[in-house]
Every structure is written in structure tokens, then in C-alpha cells.
């Protein structure tokens, strides 16, 4: 079967979209999340057999005051190990002999501060997808301890890392944020927290005090965990802890309830001093709960027990007498409530279990089969019996025995529930990621293998279907993949998206994988066979690459490689501006050579290699010499074509690259994006004043009308059949432009105007006179499209997505139109340039198969970065910046690929109508 290269490319891109979707599904595990909105919900009553129990209120708080002392990067051995003994004598004393409980709390990756704070306070396992969910608002919207405490009228004071203030902007009655921007400062950053302590500890007007010390983490980043700076810092922390504890003890005497001092770390510290990944050193943090409620007998030595970091949220809620946050996945630390009466203990456990099982019901369809849920039901029944016995006031020994049994049962149920919840959110789903990657890479390989054929002047590809060898291979591969699937799915202890799919869908994915592999193999063998033929016929096509080919190749490769560094992702706009500028200068060089010297740089207009495969070169040479793709830039057919240009036109040609360069320089200072230079003043701010902006709109609309009428008139002159299509295309293009004008922020209208101007200049004075091939023009369009994406003010962080575009002209929020509009507004640069590409290629009379080749090229240049990037992300998945830099870029790439697929389908549709007519 023969396929047009456009169709082929569109198919490949669609397959890549599928693969990327699968990859994303594996990379961003579905979060365990409570879907129900926060509403006043009465707490679950105590289970009872009859109507006799009426304990429906929440249990009273256990502690009057809570101080949370969070020390960034407090690894467990800093407190419990030799360093702790040496540098933290008071804490060690409390841990070994005092009234305290000590734990090693295990944090889940990403071990970065903000997700860890969220985990501590919501009890959930925040992943990256949370960031996407509350786009543009860093506020923590999920149910959490702080919000609950504020709702209950507790007064909260906070000193420390600014992240908290961003997460809880209105929750603290008093706060002072310190920034973690200056990593080399490990003294002032902590003094700024400690300086408030004396006054605050004397006051009585607060219920919760939160302190977040950053110094230790900074020392780790500077010189690692074995640095000599660590010791003094730990001693400083120890003295602060002592100060707080003695102050709390002295206040406690008059109070009814004891107070609680919690010393904890948010994440650990690797041996190199960093954090973010999942090594033991980074994951294990110290957690010490100090309160006179935890009395113990002398000589009772306890070792720190292992708990999850998320358990603190439930424990704090219980301690403060608050409802447990809805998306909490942790279980109550039972040792905290051990001193309470049995009825209260069971009540606490029941509340926790009810909350966890609700969460399980919301997230797992088959929750009834989960062992945790079954155990919960059993323990609830036992609990009911116990309550009945208790209320009847029966025999004490039986009551005690039953109570112990219920308690044990509840604890088992809690750990099972927690396990089945955390399993769903804990790690990367490597199998789905691998499957997605394989699909994408296969599609990319097919595209690459198709290059010589697809860019030949016929722009068609042979797709071998149903040859016996390949169908045998296909069958074998399918069988092997199915076996692999079964093995992986039965062996995997974690949940996996691909395994959770119905058999038909998973089978479809496997069949696709196998089919693509077969197609790739056959293409490869054909190329080898062709290569042998080629060596027999001496290759006269020693096609020297022109500067432009070299530049577009190196530029693409360089851009792809730069995606491996987080700074280059943050500043990707700089890469594109740099490349576009270089492109303009190269064009300038070419033009000057042509104009001033009449230099035909490439007299060897060699026939293309692909033509030799088909052996049709002879037939083709008789034909009119259209633009011949593969040889990316061309010498003009008659070298004097530029010489012939005289007068103003010639000067315009000479000046046009400079014009384009000046436009680009203006546009880049319109919106400063990125991170490092984002503080530079934007030109755009001058324009958001009202009147200027309105005038810009008028000028712009007039410009559109003018070009529209001009092109309509022009298309009237050319032949009738041709006109209809050109006009239609121009209408589509103008429609897109108008839509973009409507959606873009007012100060971005100059971007649109200058984009149209640059398009016109390039068409009139560069591409037409110099007769670049379809492939070269496509690559240039792609580069300009990318540059305009950033000129608009976009960047690779989620925060710059203009969500307001989704509300233009809509009365209320409607999801699908809003999503479409936002996507279009964000990607209007690339889309407009792509639609201009279609227009340009169809309006060239000698288009022929140019459109198909252009489509193929477009698909290729777009899919190379995506494919390489997902491989890079997989290998960098424990990088420190994986959530802040690489993941947003991954989402952008995925979206870009989707847009590319749409563009390619549009290309193919245009091509089809072209061949029909």
C-alpha cells in the first residue's frame, strides 16, 4: 500500500500522542484525593447496637497548646544517632528518659519542602498533579489541619519558611516568613525565627505555634551532612527546644490540659547534602513528640518506632480535637492516646478508620474486596458489641479483653487501609511509562526511517502490509508481549494503570507496539537492501549541506540536548530567540551573497537519493523542477532571479532580515519570561493603560482587513479552481488570527501584529525570491512558531498559562470550551505559523507534493524533542527539580504534541482535497 507522507506522518504523530498519554498516566500517578467538597459534616457517631449510645460529638482535645518545631532536613540520625547524643543533649535526655515519644517518620518522594509540608498537614501524598489542579493558586485548598484549626477558632502563629505563608495566606494571626533564596546564609535565616520566641512564649494568646528552621538544610546544601557546621547548628536547635519546653512546662502548671511540643523534619539529607530523591537518608526523618501526657516509668527504654510522615496529620487532629482531614491517608499514632480511657481510644481509632474507608470508597471502585475494608467492618461490629457491654456496665474482665481485641483489630484495619491507599499514589508506574516510551520511540523511528522516501519529490511511502514474514513476526511479538504483560502484572505489587485496563485495551496497545515494531523492521531491512543497491550505483549525490541545512540540523539537535538541563528548560525562550536570530543572520548572509555577488552557491542540484531507490529519477527529470525538498535550500533555477530584482524590491529584500531581527528584539522585551531575567521591566506594562491598547486594536483590525481584501483580490486573478482553495485557506487563517486577537491579553496584540508582519516580510522577500525547499521553509516556520510562543509571554512553568482566556465570551465556566480556548490562546503562536505554512505552500503555484513533505517535516521536528525528552525525564525522575521544572515541561511537551497532531491532520486534509481537485 502506498501512503502519502503527510498521512503517514499524521498517523505517526497520533500514535505518539497515544504513547505520551500513556507515559503521562504512568508518570503522574492518580492522586488519592477526596472528591467531595469541604462541607460541614457531622463526625461519625460511636457505633452502637441499640440506640443507647449517643456520643456523636467529637472527642475533646488532648492538648491545650501545640508547638510544632519543624527543622528542615532533620535526618533521623541527627537526633537518634551519635550526632544527636553529642550535640543535642537535652533532646537526647528527653528521648531516653523524659516524657516523650520518638519516631522515625518516613517521607515519600519527592522529598522537597513544599510537598512534604502538604503531607504533614493534610496527611495525603501530594504529587505533581496537585500543582496542576490548583493552577495559578499556590494556596492549599485541600482539607488540612491548619484550616480545620482556624475554623475551630484556634489562634495560630507562624515563623519560618515563606512556603507556609503562600500555602496558608490568611490562616495565621501573626507570621514572619523567611526566604530560602540565599542558600549560603544559615545564620540569619534561623535568627529571624528565633528572635520572636521570647515574646511569643510569654504571651498566652495563641493555641498553635509553628516554627520552621531552614538553617540545617542550607548547611546540607553547602557542605553536606558531615560538615563541621552541622554540630553547632544542632546545638543551637537543642537550646531552642529546651527554651520552648521549659516555658511550656512552667505554663502548664495552671492549665487543665498538658501541651504538646512536636519536633520534626520535613525530609532528610543525602550523603551529598541534597534532597529530592528516595534514598534512605533522604526519606527517614526524626519525629519527637514531647508532652507531660506521655509519662513513663523510670527504666522504660524505648527505641524510636517507624511511622509514616503522613500519620502526623491524623495525630495532630486528634490532639487538637479536630476532625481528621478528608484526604488523609495516615493512621493515628496509637502511642499518643495510650494513656486515655479505653472508650476514648476506641472512639479515636473508629474516627480514623471511618475517614480512611471513606477515602478508599471514593478512590477504589472495588473497595469492598480490599482486606482493609473487610477488617474495618469486622472491627466496627466488635466495637459495637463492646459499647453495648460497656453501657450495660457488665463484667469488667470480659470488657477489658474485648476492648483489647477491638483495639488490635482496629490497628490492623488501619494499617491495611493505609497500605492500600498509599500503594495507589506512592511511586512511578514504570511499566506504563515504559510502554508509552516504546510506542513513542517506535513511531519516531518509523518517521526517521521514512525520511529518504517521504522527502523525495513524490512524497509517498511504501507501507508493506501482510507480507508473510512480517505477519509471522507480528504474531510472535504479540505473543511475547502478552506473556510479558501477564508476568509484569502478576508480579507487580503496586497498582499499574496498564494492568488495570480491560484486556481488550491492553491488547490493543500491545498489538500496536508489535505492529509498529514489525513496520520498523521491514523499513530497516528495505533500507539495508536499498543501501546495497546504492553502493552498486556510484552515488553521484555527494550532497553538500548548505549552511542553512547545517543550522537547522544543529539547532534542532542542540535544542533537544538542552532539555536535559533544568536551567535551559526554565530559560527555553532564550534558546529559541537565539536560534531564530541565528537563522535570520544566516538568511541575511545567503541573501547578500545572492544579491551582491550573484553567487550560486550550490550548482550541484543533485537528484535526490530517494529517487534512486525507486529508479524513477529519469522520469522525473523531464518534469518541471519544483522545489525539491530534501536538498533543503536551493540555488534558484536561474541564478539571475535576484539579480533581476531592481529598485525598491531589491532593497526590501536586503533589508528584510534586519526588519525581522528588529521585530524579534522588540517582541522579546515585550514579555520577560523565564526565571533569571523575569524581573526586567516588560515593555508590555506600558501598553496596559487603556487608550493605547484600544488604538492598537484598531490599527490591528484595519491591518487584517487590508491584507484580507488584498489577498482576496489577488486570488481572483489566478485560475478558478485554485482560487477557491486559497481563499478558503486564507479565510481559515484570518479566522484563527481574529480568534487569537480576541483571546490574547491586550498588551500582547503587538505580538500578533508583528507576527503577521514578519510572516509577510519573510514570504515576500525571502522565501519567494530565494526559493527555499518545502522542508527548509517548514523548519523555519516551526522555529518562528516556537519563538512566538515565548514572545507571547509563555514559559515552561505552569504559572504563565493564561486561564482567563478560557472565560472570554462565556457567561459561566464551561469546561470543554474553556479548555479549548485556553489551549488555543497558549499555542496561538505555533498554530498561526503552521496555518501560514499551509497557506504559503498552497499559494505557491508549483506546490505539487510540497504540502505532504512539509507535513512530514513538521511531524518530525515536533516529535524528536518529545521523544528524547520523555527518555530524559525517565532517567532524571529522581532529580531535585523533577517536580518544579521537568514535569511542567513534560506537560507542555505533551500538549504541544497534541497540537501538532491536530496540525498534521489539518495538513493531510488539505492535501487530500488538493489531490481530489
Amino acid at each position, binding site marked *: 500500500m502506498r501512503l502519502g507522507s503527510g498521512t503517514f506522518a499524521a498517523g505517526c504523530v497520533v500514535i505518539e500522542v497515544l504513547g505520551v498519554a500513556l507515559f503521562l498516566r504512568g508518570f503522574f500517578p492518580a492522586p488519592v484525593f477526596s472528591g467531595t467538597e469541604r462541607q460541614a459534616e457531622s463526625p461519625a457517631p460511636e457505633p452502637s447496637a441499640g440506640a443507647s449510645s449517643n456520643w456523636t460529638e467529637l472527642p475533646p482535645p488532648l492538648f491545650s497548646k501545640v508547638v510544632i518545631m519543624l527543622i528542615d532536613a532533620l535526618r533521623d540520625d541527627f537526633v537518634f544517632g551519635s550526632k544527636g547524643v553529642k550535640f543535642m543533649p537535652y533532646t537526647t535526655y528527653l528521648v531516653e528518659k523524659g516524657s516523650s515519644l520518638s519516631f522515625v517518620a518516613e517521607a515519600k518522594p519527592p522529598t522537597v519542602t513544599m510537598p512534604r509540608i502538604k503531607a504533614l498537614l493534610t496527611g495525603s501524598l501530594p504529587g505533581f498533579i496537585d500543582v496542576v489542579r490548583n493552577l495559578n493558586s499556590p494556596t492549599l485548598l485541600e482539607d488540612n489541619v491548619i484550616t480545620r484549626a482556624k475554623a475551630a477558632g484556634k489562634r495560630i502563629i507562624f515563623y519560618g519558611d515563606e512556603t507556609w505563608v503562600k500555602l496558608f495566606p490568611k490562616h495565621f494571626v501573626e507570621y514572619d516568613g523567611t526566604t530560602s533564596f540565599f542558600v549560603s546564609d544559615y545564620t540569619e535565616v534561623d535568627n529571624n525565627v528565633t528572635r520572636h520566641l521570647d515574646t511569643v512564649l510569654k504571651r498566652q494568646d495563641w493555641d498553635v505555634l509553628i516554627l520552621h528552621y531552614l538553617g540545617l538544610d542550607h548547611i546540607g546544601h553547602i557542605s553536606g551532612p558531615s560538615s563541621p557546621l552541622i554540630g553547632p547548628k544542632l546545638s543551637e536547635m537543642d537550646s531552642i527546644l529546651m527554651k520552648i519546653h521549659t516555658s511550656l512546662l512552667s505554663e502548664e502548671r495552671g492549665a487543665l490540659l498538658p501541651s504538646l511540643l512536636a519536633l520534626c523534619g520535613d525530609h532528610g539529607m543525602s550523603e551529598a547534602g541534597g534532597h529530592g530523591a528516595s534514598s534512605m537518608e533522604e526519606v527517614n526523618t526524626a519525629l519527637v513528640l514531647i508532652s507531660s501526657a506521655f509519662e513513663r516509668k523510670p527504666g522504660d527504654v524505648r527505641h524510636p518506632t517507624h511511622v509514616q510522615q503522613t500519620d502526623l496529620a491524623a495525630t495532630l487532629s486528634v490532639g487538637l480535637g479536630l476532625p481528621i482531614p478528608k484526604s488523609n491517608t495516615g493512621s493515628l499514632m496509637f502511642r499518643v492516646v495510650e494513656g486515655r480511657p479505653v472508650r476514648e481510644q476506641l472512639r479515636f481509632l473508629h474516627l480514623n478508620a471511618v475517614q480512611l474507608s471513606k477515602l478508599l470508597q471514593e478512590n477504589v471502585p472495588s473497595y469492598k474486596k480490599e482486606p482493609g475494608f473487610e477488617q474495618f467492618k469486622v472491627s466496627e461490629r466488635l466495637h459495637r458489641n463492646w459499647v453495648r457491654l460497656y453501657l450495660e456496665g457488665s463484667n469488667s474482665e470480659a470488657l477489658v479483653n474485648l476492648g483489647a481485641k477491638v483495639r488490635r483489630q482496629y490497628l490492623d484495619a488501619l494499617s491495611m487501609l493505609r497500605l492500600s491507599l498509599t500503594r495507589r499514589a506512592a511511586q512511578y508506574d514504570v511499566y506504563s511509562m515504559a510502554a508509552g516510551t516504546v510506542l513513542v520511540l517506535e513511531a519516531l523511528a518509523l518517521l526517521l526511517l521514512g525520511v529518504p522516501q517521504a522527502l523525495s519529490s513524490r512524497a509517498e511511502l511504501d507501507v508493506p502490509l501482510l507480507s508473510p514474514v512480517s505477519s509471522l513476526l507480528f504474531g510472535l511479538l504479540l505473543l511475547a508481549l502478552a506473556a510479558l504483560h501477564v508476568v509484569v502484572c502478576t508480579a507487580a505489587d503496586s497498582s499499574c494503570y496498564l494492568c488495570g485496563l480491560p484486556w481488550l485495551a491492553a491488547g490493543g496497545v500491545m498489538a500496536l507496539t508489535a505492529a509498529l515494531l514489525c513496520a520498523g523492521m521491514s523499513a530497516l531491512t528495505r533500507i539495508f537492501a536499498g543501501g546495497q543497491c546504492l553502493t552498486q550505483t556510484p552515488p553521484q549525490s555527494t550532497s553538500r549541506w548548505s549552511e542553512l541545512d547545517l543550522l537547522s540540523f544543529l539547532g534542532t539537535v542542540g535544542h533537544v540536548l538542552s532539555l536535559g538541563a533544568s536551567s535551559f528548560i526554565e530559560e527555553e525562550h532564550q534558546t529559541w530567540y*537565539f536560534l531564530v536570530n541565528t537563522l535570520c543572520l544566516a538568511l541575511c548572509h545567503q541573501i547578500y551573497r545572492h544579491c551582491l555577488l550573484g553567487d550560486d552557491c550550490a550548482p550541484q542540484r543533485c537528484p535526490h537519493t530517494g529517487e534512486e531507490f525507486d529508479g524513477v529519477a529519469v522520469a522525473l527529470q523531464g518534469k518541471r523542477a519544483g522545489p525539491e525538498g530534501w536538498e533543503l535550500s536551493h540555488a534558484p533555477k536561474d541564478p539571475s532571479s535576484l539579480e533581476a530584482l531592481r529598485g525598491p524590491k531589491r532593497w526590501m529584500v536586503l533589508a528584510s532580515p534586519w526588519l525581522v531581527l528588529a521585530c524579534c528584539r522588540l517582541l522579546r522585551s515585550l514579555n520577560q519570561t523565564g526565571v533569571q531575567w523575569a524581573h526586567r521591566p516588560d515593555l508590555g506594562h506600558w501598553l496596559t493603560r487603556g487608550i493605547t491598547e484600544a488604538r492598537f486594536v484598531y490599527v490591528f483590525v484595519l491591518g487584517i482587513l487590508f491584507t484580507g481584501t488584498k489577498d482576496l483580490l489577488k486570488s481572483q486573478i489566478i485560475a478558478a479552481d485554485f482560487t477557491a482553495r486559497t481563499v478558503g485557506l486564507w479565510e481559515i487563517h484570518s479566522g484563527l488570527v481574529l480568534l487569537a486577537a480576541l483571546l490574547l491579553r491586550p498588551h500582547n496584540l503587538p505580538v500578533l501584529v508583528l507576527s503577521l508582519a514578519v510572516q509577510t516580510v519573510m514570504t515576500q522577500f525571502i522565501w519567494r525570491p530565494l526559493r527555499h525547499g518545502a522542508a527548509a521553509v517548514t523548519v523555519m516556520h516551526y522555529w518562528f512558531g516556537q519563538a512566538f510562543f515565548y514572545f507571547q509571554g509563555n514559559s515552561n512553568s505552569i504559572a504563565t498559562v493564561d486561564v482567563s482566556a478560557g472565560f472570554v465570551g462565556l457567561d459561566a465556566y464551561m469546561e470543554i470550551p474553556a479548555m479549548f480556548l485556553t489551549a488555543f490562546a497558549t499555542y496561538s503562536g505555533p498554530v498561526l505559523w503552521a496555518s501560514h505554512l499551509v497557506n504559503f505552500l498552497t499559494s505557491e503555484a508549483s506546490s505539487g507534493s510540497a504540502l505532504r513533505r512539509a507535513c512530514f517535516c513538521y511531524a518530525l521536528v515536533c516529535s524528536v524533542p518529545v521523544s528524547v525528552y520523555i527518555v530524559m525525564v525517565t532517567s532524571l525522575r529522581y532529580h531535585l527539580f523533577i517536580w518544579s521544572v521537568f514535569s511542567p515541561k513534560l506537560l507542555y511537551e505533551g500538549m504541544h504534541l497534541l497540537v501538532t497532531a491536530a496540525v498534521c491532520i489539518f495538513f493531510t486534509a488539505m492535501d487530500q482535497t488538493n489531490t481530489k481537485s
Partner: protein
Amino acid sequence: MKDTDIKKLLYTHLLCIFSIILSVFIPSFFLENFSILETHLTWLYICSVSATAVNLVLYLVMKPNVSSKRSSLSYKVTRFLKCCIYFLTSCFFFHVIFVLYGAPLIELALETFSLAVILSTFTTVPCLCLLGPNLKAWLRIFSRNGVTSVWENSLQITTISSFVGIWLGAFPIPLDWGRPWQEWPISCTLGATFGYVAGLVISPLWIYWNRKKLTYKNN
């Protein structure tokens, strides 16, 4: 003929490299606190002056193109003045290009201009020495099959490698390493210098390797 030319080329290039190396070490004997990174502009101008001087002296000594027919004093003076104007023009031209590439427009203008000066030193000065103020000849050299002698070929290579060097030198700027040499325009200057030195080293070798293939029309 050719081999002697190549040998001459090699020696002149070695002298140029030597002058650049000296410009790094010699000033520290005379100036306090001299270092490439901290007193960057001082080094830049010293390097630029010494490279220009060496180029001029070598040109006067070697006289690679013997075809200057008229040699009246007034002709020489106008030629020299023209060369100066060309040099200044090229400095401004490069400055404009740097701004187009995204260098700040107003602040750090002196730094940008100094970068333009050093790039002109590495590219325009050799062109002026060898070709004189003749734009057509310049364009000819930088197009395919346009070179007519070993000297022009080496000029082409050094100039292009200087450009590539400065181009690559811009890459580390966005990285968040916070090193002193990432400041504008230090990395670009260093890139240009390394590119120029690399071009000086490569061009005699490349010409030597390809001496069979290279045929010059005039030679």
C-alpha cells in the same frame, strides 16, 4: 611555494597565539589585582590592542599580497583611515547584533561594546590587514569556493571559528551555576578568544592535511 606558505602561516599563527597568551600574563606584573575575571575589561582591551599590533606587524613584515601597485603616501593614508572607519563601523555593527540577540539595550552598554571590540579584533582586523577595505572581497571569501590563497583560507577559518566561539560562549549564560565567568560578557569574550585561538591552530593543520585537494585559482 605552497609548503613554504603553510610554514609561514604556521609561524605567524604561533606568534598570534603567543601574543594572546602574553596578554594574560604580562599585565599582572605591572597592574595590581589584575585577573581575567575581575578586571575583565582591562584584559579585554589589552588583549585587543596586542592582537591588533601583532597582526599589523606581521602583515607589514610578511606582505602576503604583493599586488599593491600604487604606493603613494596619500593613498596609504586614505587607506589607513578607511581601515579605521571600517573597524569602528564593524564594532557598532556587532554591537547592534548583540543587542538584537538580546543584550540589554542601555545598561551594560560599555560591556557590550567591549565585546564588539574584541570580536572585531579577531575578525575585522585580519580581514582589513589582508584584504583592505574592500567589501566585495570580504563577501567573496565568505562564500563557497571564493578563497584564492592559503592566507585567505586561513582567514576564513579563523574568522568563522571566532564567530562559532562567541556563539557557543553565550550558551552557559542561562545556567544557574552562579559562577563569576557567567557574567555578561565574560563567557562570550572567552568563547571568542578560544574560538580564535582554535582557528589559529586548526587552519594551518587543516590546510596542510588538505593541501592536495585545495587548488587556488590565482596560485
